[in-house]
């Protein structure tokens, strides 16, 4: 209790070493699972620098994929926790809010209507056309939603969801238009990209996302208490001295970068951003300073589990991981909605 009252900027999270250890164990287990059977000998070979087949599969295929799942999961969990804080709503999530739809919309435009323009870009820039478009789309969508959410009272879940629904529908309408205008080749590219898969894992992308997640964690540390203040309402947060507009701008930018990068490389993977913060709140309480890093951890673990299942359930084929997260996420969301309704007292 005294530790909490002292209110340091970054409250000590008990059990940090345990959390890291658990994640490491999950990583090892995930790296061990897959279509090609691997064993202890392969790990030993890898660590010993020998170039056996097993060691190579670990180094070139498994570990990048597993690391990718960890950073993408952390990005999604953190983006979800940030959304919930910024919009003051425990059911907010980038997917429900339409932010990934904004990214999809931008990518659809880039792959179809603007593909001629994109083809004219210098070769060095072309691989970045889709990710940059995804980021821009996520950012624009985030800004639009913010404007609507500011008119809402905290706890008005229905209002926020409806706003997200409407913006989702708008983005999807644009995507529909692009689908209509697309050639077969473009259409196939777009459809595949949307399914939500971690197949495009590679060390450079892992590094890029790792940097983004690290930056976001720094941002979370800076603004954790500010997010707590935001839970009191924007007016009250401003009254106690929080620079609300500036903080929100930074957090929305962070959120859009995380969500946009994840969507850019992986397509639509839903529900991680919704469930990870809930799990975090269940474990460490509602203090945002604790919830943010713990949500990142839960996101990493959840996506790791989902992707491992995606890689092993229909061997030698692979399920798009977005399908798995939706399959398991939707029932859990239903349970959460029922509980939220009870707690908010039927306010919606």
């Amino acid at each position: 209790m005294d530790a909490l009252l002292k209110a340091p900027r970054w409250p000590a999270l008990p059990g940090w070493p345990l959390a890291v250890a658990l994640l490491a164990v999950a990583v090892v287990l995930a790296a061990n699972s897959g279509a090609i059977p691997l064993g202890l000998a392969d790990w030993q070979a890898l660590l010993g620098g020998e170039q056996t087949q097993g060691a190579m599969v670990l180094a070139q295929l498994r570990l990048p994929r597993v690391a990718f799942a960890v950073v993408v999961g952390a990005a999604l969990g953190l983006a979800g926790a940030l959304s919930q804080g910024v919009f003051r709503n425990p059911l907010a999530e980038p997917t429900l809010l339409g932010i990934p739809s904004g990214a999809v919309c931008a990518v659809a435009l880039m792959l179809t209507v603007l593909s001629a323009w994109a083809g004219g870009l210098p070769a060095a820039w072309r691989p970045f056309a889709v990710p940059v478009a995804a980021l821009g789309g996520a950012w624009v969508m985030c800004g639009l939603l913010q404007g609507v959410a500011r008119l809402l009272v905290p706890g008005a879940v229905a209002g926020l969801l409806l706003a997200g629904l409407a913006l989702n529908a708008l983005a999807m309408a644009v995507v529909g238009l692009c689908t209509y205008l697309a050639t077969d080749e473009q259409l196939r590219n777009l459809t595949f990209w949307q399914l939500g898969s971690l197949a495009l894992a590679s060390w450079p992308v892992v590094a890029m996302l790792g940097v983004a997640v690290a930056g976001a964690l720094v941002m979370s540390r800076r603004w954790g208490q500010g997010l707590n203040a935001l839970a009191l309402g924007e007016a009250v947060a401003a009254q106690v001295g929080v620079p609300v507009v500036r903080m929100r701008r930074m957090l929305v930018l962070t959120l859009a970068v995380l969500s946009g990068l994840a969507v850019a490389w992986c397509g639509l993977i839903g529900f991680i951003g919704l469930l990870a913060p809930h799990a975090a709140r269940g474990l460490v309480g509602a203090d945002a300073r604790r919830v943010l890093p713990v949500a990142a951890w839960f996101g990493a673990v959840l996506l790791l589990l989902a992707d491992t299942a995606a890689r092993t359930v229909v061997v030698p084929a692979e399920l798009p991981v977005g399908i798995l997260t939706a399959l398991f996420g939707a029932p859990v969301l239903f349970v959460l909605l029922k509980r939220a309704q009870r707690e908010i007292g039927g306010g919606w």
Partner: protein
Amino acid sequence: MKRRSLLSAALLPAFVRAQPQPRIVSVGGAVTETVFALGAQGQLAGVDTTSLFPVDATKLPQVGYARTLSAEGVLALKPQLLLASGEAGPPLVLAQLRSAGVRVEVLDDQHRFDGVLARTQRIGALCGREREAAQLVARLQQDWAARPKPPAGAPPRVLFVLAHAAGQLRVAGEGTSADAMLTLAGARNALAGVQGYKPLTAEAALQAAPDVVLCTTQGLDAQGGADGLLKAPGLALTPAGRARRVASMEALLLLGFGPRLPQAVAELTDRLHGRTA
């Protein structure tokens, strides 16, 4: 790249270049059909979701959808050769397979008969079945020469409808495999001036004014037969709709451009020109 050569060096024992009869993963219905036609099915380690003919192909391990292959999944089948019909992907996975020492060959037929012959020969060479390939090519050429010629007179206007999802009908313009088949069968694509597949609209259908509506058997069943299909916007009012001239053929046979191409063209020619039902 250093990484790539390390990987292939590690897997070198698994892949011997001079391997006469390599283990194969086949992606694409027509490619798989060709492998079977060459008698090389014993070399098949896995196939994709479109490999539906012959029936034995469906009993092989499934690597999934052609565009979303899994590098590890394919490697787990320990192939030396990946044969693909042009849609295999994603590119990163193909690169990973190549760097793991799997020979990846993408074989396009360009919707032409000579393309089919060339592909047959190439597959024969890759599988170590040159003799069977030469025999198959000869037989194909014979069947092709003997195929029924379309009768003299104006070619019928045909509209090909792709109808796999309920309510989502698309029609084939130029540059599609359906369009190529129509040309080979001596018919005219009613949807001229359009590239690729487009959604079906009532006005477009009426303007196209097809004499026959062509469909795949699977698609026709999904729409509930000819009656169901003709409920689509505009179709009922076209000449084909009013005369209830709806033709259908099995999807892989019709659009696959595989070893059964002469047979497919023969059947389509007969159907479209009204010689058979």
